């Protein structure tokens, strides 16, 4: 791929604005509330766009296009099944407790609801995990640009780290959120023409369907396997993902999706920066609208790539790499100018993914680790200073992680696996905590550990394909194993939390006010205009998601 002057000009302008936003926000950063929570002052559409953009790292843009090429339209389950229902649930039912309790963070909610040890467990694992993911993201970016443009990987990593560091130091969470909103629009304008021109080239949706039916039959599946999302979920052998409908719906649609969207502080933090309870609740609901449309921007180009490019185009150094689907499409269809915009959108999504992780890290570190365990009676200015130090440390640790990933790929795979064990049971704890007043601190703590244990045991005892002969059970694919592991972990956590809660002493119900559904007065939104009511938005978004599922059934 070769870049022209205009492409560099676009990229340079983006960098100027990113840093400019940080500089312009500096004078608004007066207290720790401004720095960590944007003063709880942002409008719902801003936090809503940040809510999905923080999640829309470039791994998603690259990875979802790759999945589109590899699995076809079934990839949309990560959106229409694996995101929208959970986003509706968190907005309607859970946000009142996150925003309404005096908690600064998700781990702090766990302390208010349960106890110190449950919070510590969640805070420490989350903090490590965010640094890890931002490091991985940096590494992936560096490698991609090295492969595509021949840019030095060290330069990519250092430049992106420095830019992110500077704009967070200057503008805190607000800087990160504003840049996420900016990135959202860059992704839309940068990738919409690609989907359009690509679809035109493939002969529209009908033409694409015809071409993909050849791809499907060549791979040994029914003709519609790449263009129908539910039809081929009857048995794992009938679809390229190797999953059946129950594992898909429960594993991805329930456990993994709710575990991420409803408990991950990276996204919840965006909603908590909203200016009112109503705005906080509308954040995930408004975010669901563009989230529903993203498959057309990120999955469709991948599907087009596999339909129109020869198989050999995906082979790099002798191995098939579907991650190149999106870059290959940019290369094929974009002239200079738009190519710069597309690349800038990619750079933006890498950087905002990184910044999202760093801001979530500095908040959890300061409020949930430093303040309770290391120095509990500091001044506000001290904690703000600490937040900035944590930003520096977090960025440095991310860079270090990126280099570890570069040298020891398998250590990273192992860590990623361990994190999936930790995350899988989380939603059971929050569900019981918020909707069952009888759930106790010991129940939650041991439930979480049992869930993580169950995930690890499940992983050890099962395997994938023919290599798993000696194991207790063989799954048809990695994805099936992953989904079912999550189901086991969630169930173990759910059952153990209930059993231990029943044999330990409950907390007084006065202490649980504002933390548990049955003990909290309902929020009345009647005085809001109808389009601002979370319940109305939830129904609209829910119906739209159902229609999309049926249309591409």
């Amino acid at each position: 791929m070769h870049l022209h002057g205009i492409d560099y000009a676009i990229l340079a302008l983006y960098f100027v604005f990113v840093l400019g936003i940080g500089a312009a926000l500096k004078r608004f950063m007066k207290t720790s509330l401004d720095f960590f929570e944007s003063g709880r002052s942002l409008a719902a559409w801003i936090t809503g766009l940040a809510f999905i953009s923080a999640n829309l790292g470039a791994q998603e843009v690259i990875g979802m296009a790759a999945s589109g090429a590899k699995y076809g339209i079934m990839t949309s389950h990560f959106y229409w099944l694996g995101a929208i229902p959970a986003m509706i649930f968190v907005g309607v039912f859970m946000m009142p407790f996150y925003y309404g309790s005096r908690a600064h963070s998700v781990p702090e909610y766990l302390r208010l609801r349960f106890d110190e040890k449950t919070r510590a467990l969640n805070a420490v694992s989350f903090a490590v995990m965010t640094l890890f993911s931002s490091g991985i993201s940096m590494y992936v970016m560096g490698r991609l640009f090295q492969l595509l443009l021949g840019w030095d990987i060290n330069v990519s990593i250092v430049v992106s780290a420095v830019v992110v560091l500077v704009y967070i130091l200057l503008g805190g969470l607000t800087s990160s959120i504003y840049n996420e909103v900016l990135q959202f629009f860059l992704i839309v304008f940068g990738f919409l023409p690609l989907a359009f021109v690509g679809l035109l080239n493939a002969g529209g949706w009908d033409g694409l369907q015809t071409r993909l039916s050849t791809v499907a039959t060549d791979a040994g599946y029914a003709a519609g396997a790449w263009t129908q999302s539910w039809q081929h979920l009857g048995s794992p052998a009938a679809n390229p993902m190797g999953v059946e409908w129950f594992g898909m719906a429960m594993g991805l649609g329930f456990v993994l999706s709710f575990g991420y969207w409803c408990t991950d502080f990276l996204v919840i933090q965006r909603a908590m920066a909203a200016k009112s309870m109503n705005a906080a609740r509308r954040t995930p609901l408004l975010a669901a609208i563009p989230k529903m449309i993203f498959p057309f921007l990120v999955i469709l180009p991948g599907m087009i790539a596999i339909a129109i490019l020869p198989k050999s185009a995906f082979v790099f150094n002798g191995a098939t790499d579907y991650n190149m689907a999106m870059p290959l499409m940019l290369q094929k269809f974009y002239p200079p100018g738009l190519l710069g915009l597309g690349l800038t959108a990619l750079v933006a999504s890498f950087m905002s993914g990184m910044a999202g992780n760093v801001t979530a890290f500095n908040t959890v570190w300061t409020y949930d680790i430093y303040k309770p365990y290391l120095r509990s009676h500091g001044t506000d200015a001290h904690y703000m200073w600490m937040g900035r130090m944590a930003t520096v440390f977090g960025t440095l640790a991310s860079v270090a992680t990126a280099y570890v990933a570069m040298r020891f790929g398998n250590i990273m795979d192992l860590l990623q696996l361990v994190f999936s064990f930790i995350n899988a049971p989380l939603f059971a704890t929050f569900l019981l905590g918020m909707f069952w007043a009888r759930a106790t601190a010991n129940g939650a703590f041991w439930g979480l550990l049992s869930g993580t244990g169950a995930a690890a045991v499940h992983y050890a005892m099962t395997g994938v394909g023919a290599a798993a002969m000696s194991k207790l059970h063989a799954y048809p694919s990695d994805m099936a194993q992953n989904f079912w592991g999550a189901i086991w972990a969630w169930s173990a956590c759910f059952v153990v939390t209930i059993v231990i809660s029943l044999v330990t002493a409950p907390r007084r119900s006065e202490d649980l006010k504002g933390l548990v559904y049955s003990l909290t007065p309902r929020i009345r939104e009647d005085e809001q205009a109808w389009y601002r009511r979370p319940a109305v938005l939830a129904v609209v978004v829910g119906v739209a998601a159902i229609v999309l599922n049926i249309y591409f059934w």
Partner: protein
Amino acid sequence: MQLDVRLPIGLLFAVLGLLLTGYGLLGDPAVYQVSLGINVNLWTGVGMLAFGAFMLGGAWLRTR
């Protein structure tokens, strides 16, 4: 009080929109062979310019 997010976004999109529109109008049309003969820079540029103006307009209305 915060900086209105529409200000920097509107400005960046207006500038990028102008740049792409100008490039689409004045640049060599041969480069659009890859995009099926469609002048994608011009169209995207006009879209970004309109969006930038819309954002700036929103920011301006609020300060009035």
